């Protein structure tokens, strides 16, 4: 297992895909530093502090899950190559168990995903030093948020080995994981919008000035669908990351547990299927 | 002399160096041309240039007398079939579907002959199996069938023995010989399995470092190669003393093995060895012509 991990990491650091991902994360960090620092300092005059660009490590203001969009294709290429080029055989023929192969891939993916986010945090943190941007959120609140975000990223990375193993074709894995990341983004924004529907809507007078009546909103979610909606947003790693990036976390304690559940479920399923599947 | 393919000082640069370094070669009509060289010598690069997959950096070639810069070259290529490097087949299709594709690409009016072609490469009973699930040898044979689909007069095969079982190698050899004799198809085969090549080729071209080192016909090669007698003895020293006395040329392979050139009198030699107390364990005529010729020509360096 140690050897496999070692081999995986050395392949990771030499892979073009990882370099491309690093470059993308770097560019993203620079972009956010530019945009948020500009808006905080020059335009809006500091409603938020450093926590805003820092938490954008997990997405842009609850809307675009940028880290997922970077890691989905990168990790798919990284793992898909093993199946496409058949190098996974080299590991198995030297007597490694399938479980060890799968777990070492999983660990490499989760680490790479966390590393990318750490790179971002370091860059934004470093940019804050010369500009002296203050932290307006207490560190005791920011730190667990960031940790939960990293865990959610790791959970989304844990889905890639499962997908790569099921699909076994580099390109198709890329298409599926990237489309899934984008689909999750739309799904979360749809669900969030549904949750945000008001219970009553106002009917205005003919001049549009005064509300004369309040009608129940048919789009308002009833308790059961509401709970399901909420649960889905919290369950999906993309949902967690977007909540963290928007600083709109509601059920604090539930997120890490759900992330761990996702990791466990994905790994369990992946391992089970990998054990059964015949390799070529 | 009519040449199907003539190359003149071909040079091909890649980002990381030269693959061809002024290669000049002549493939005679009706020949089975064995193209010999170590890995990375430039064999596949030349084939890619001839197939039009890449353009030479410098130099020219003619195919059926048609220069490579002329527009007519595509028409000349129509008479050619090739398997370059790995077999070019759609992995998601069956053998038959793959051939149908190639028939359509060539604009053949009907699928007549498709079944025969599949039989010819022993893939007649693969049914609905996708090429993805083929063995390496089956893919190789399907690649050859695709190359043969256009009924070419000139067939280029890049390492055709790769991945074939012994029976497959024999069948491909017989197929090539038959195509060459019965349909007068000229064949260019690149290979580094010299033993196999020597059973087929009528001409040889030896390449090294992107250059043609020697072009030679099989009879010329035969003539220029010396046969030898390989003796295995209990001790080589008395043998060399005896050979020196008899004025014969030889080379010592090990403490117990000596190759003797020319044609010594075996009786005389064994008597002399008997007197010197040296036991002769084995004598056989050794004919490693192509391999030793090649090794002498390009040296026995490593692949890189």
């Amino acid at each position, binding site marked *: 297992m140690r050897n496999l991990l070692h081999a995986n990491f050395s392949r990771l650091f030499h892979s073009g895909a990882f370099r491309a991902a690093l470059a993308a994360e770097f560019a993203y960090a620079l972009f956010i530093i530019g945009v948020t620092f500009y808006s905080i300092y020059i335009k809006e005059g500091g409603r938020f502090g450093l926590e805003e660009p820092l938490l954008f490590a997990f997405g842009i203001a609850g809307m675009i899950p940028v880290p997922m*969009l970077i890691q989905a*294709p990168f990790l*798919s*290429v990284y793992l*898909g190559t093993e199946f496409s080029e058949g190098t996974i055989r080299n590991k198995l023929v030297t007597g490694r168990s399938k479980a060890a192969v799968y777990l070492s891939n999983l660990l490499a993916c989760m680490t790479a995903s966390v590393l990318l986010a750490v790179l971002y945090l370091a860059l934004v943190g470093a940019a804050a030093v010369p500009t002296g941007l203050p932290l307006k959120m207490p560190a005791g609140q920011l730190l667990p948020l960031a940790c939960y975000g990293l865990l959610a990223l790791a959970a989304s990375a844990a889905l890639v080995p499962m997908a790569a193993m099921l699909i076994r074709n*580099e*390109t*198709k894995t*890329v*298409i599926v994981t*990237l*489309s899934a990341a*984008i689909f999750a983004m739309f799904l979360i924004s749809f669900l969030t919008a549904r949750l945000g529907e008001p219970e009553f809507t106002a009917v205005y007078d003919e001049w549009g*000035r005064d509300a004369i009546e309040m009608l129940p909103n*048919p789009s308002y979610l009833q308790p059961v669908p509401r709970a399901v909606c909420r649960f889905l947003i919290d369950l999906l790693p993309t949902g967690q990351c977007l909540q963290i990036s928007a600083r709109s976390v509601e059920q604090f304690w539930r997120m890490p547990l759900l992330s761990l559940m996702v990791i466990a479920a994905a790994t369990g399923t992946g391992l089970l299927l990998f054990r059964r599947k015949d390799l070529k | 002399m009519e040449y199907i393919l003539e190359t003149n000082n071909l040079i091909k640069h*890649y980002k990381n160096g030269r693959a061809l370094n002024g290669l000049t070669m002549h493939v005679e009509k009706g020949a089975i041309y064995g193209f010999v060289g170590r890995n990375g010598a430039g064999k596949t690069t030349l084939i*890619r240039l001839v*197939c*039009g*997959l*890449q*353009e030479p950096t410098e130099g020219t070639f003619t195919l059926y007398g048609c220069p490579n810069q002329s527009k007519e*070259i*595509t*028409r*000349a*290529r*129509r*008479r*050619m*079939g*090739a398997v*370059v*490097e*790995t*077999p*070019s*087949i*759609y*992995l*998601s*299709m069956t053998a038959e*579907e793959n051939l*149908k*594709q*190639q028939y*359509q*690409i*060539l*604009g*053949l*009016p009907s699928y007549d002959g498709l079944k025969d072609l599949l039989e010819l490469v022993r893939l007649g009973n693969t049914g609905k199996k996708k090429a993805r699930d083929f063995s390496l040898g089956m893919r190789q044979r399907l690649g050859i069938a*695709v190359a043969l689909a*256009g*009924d070419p007069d000139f067939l280029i095969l890049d390492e055709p023995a790769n991945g074939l079982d012994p029976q497959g190698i024999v069948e491909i050899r017989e197929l090539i010989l038959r195509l060459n004799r019965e349909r007068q198809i000229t064949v260019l085969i690149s290979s580094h399995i010299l033993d196999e090549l020597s059973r087929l080729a009528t001409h040889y071209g030896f390449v090294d470092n992107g250059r043609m080192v020697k072009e030679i016909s099989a009879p010329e090669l035969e003539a220029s190669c010396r046969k030898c007698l390989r003796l295995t003895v209990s001790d080589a020293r008395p043998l060399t003393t005896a050979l020196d006395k008899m004025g014969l040329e030889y080379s010592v392979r090990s403490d117990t093995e000596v190759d003797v050139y020319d044609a010594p009198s075996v009786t005389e030699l064994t008597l002399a060895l008997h007197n010197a107390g040296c036991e002769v364990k084995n004598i056989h005529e050794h004919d490693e012509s192509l391999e030793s010729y090649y090794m002498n020509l390009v040296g026995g360096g490593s692949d890189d």
Partner: protein
Amino acid sequence: MRAKLSVNLLLRANFSRLWRSASFWVSVAVMSAISVFELAVGYQPRLQGGAGILDNRYMIFALLSGVVLSAFCSLFTGSEYSDGTMRNKVAVGHSRTAVYLSNLAVCAAAGVLACCGYILPMVIVGVPLLGPFTMSVSSLLWFTLCAFIMTAAMCAIFTMIAMLNQNKAVVAVICIFLAYFLLFLGIYLNTRLTEQAVIPAREYIENGQILVREAMPNPSYVQGVKRTVFEILYGLPGCQAVQLLATAEACPVRLPLASLGAIAVSTTAGAALFRRKDLK
């Protein structure tokens, strides 16, 4: 006798490959599934009485086609490289231009067919379910034609990317990101370009008094060179989809012309570069 080689042969071969291609049928199925989903979503407001619902639902395919076809084009064209079959065509003497054009044609046709996968359920099921279109037949046909041409232009761009890069996975990533990028760019440009030049005068009540706010220029209004650039970008395939939806009833002729221009430019450049490319 040897038949004369022409693009027709390659086209026929490509189409027979298209009918067998799983990724093509998946693309059609995805479009149809979204169509059915849209119908189901549209059915609820219909029960509460709404007009023109079918028109709105119908036009969505223009937004989707680029995204769905980005994956298809990279897989279909990419397999010519990964399976090495591109060599079979070039080695028997087909010209590079013919190979390029036949791939372009089949991808564009697949694009239009995938759109039909969306349109057919809309027409067959949608009309009885949601009532007839409110648009005139000629507007509907004109909109559909413009959307088809734009889809073909998107496919032309994806084909260019796929023909110039031998790595299928990289092509897939580039094409998918490009499709979404163009879509979001279109939405952004639509927002910016529909800003009013002047904020109209408005009456409002404060402390029981009716006050009038003068009309004033809108600071968000885009003008000058910037507006011209925005308008040109808004005509790009992909971005154009948003404009098509916005101007559905009277889509200006310049939109299909811009798409045809994009096809011409990408094909000329793509074919020229492909002719010089070293194949393996």
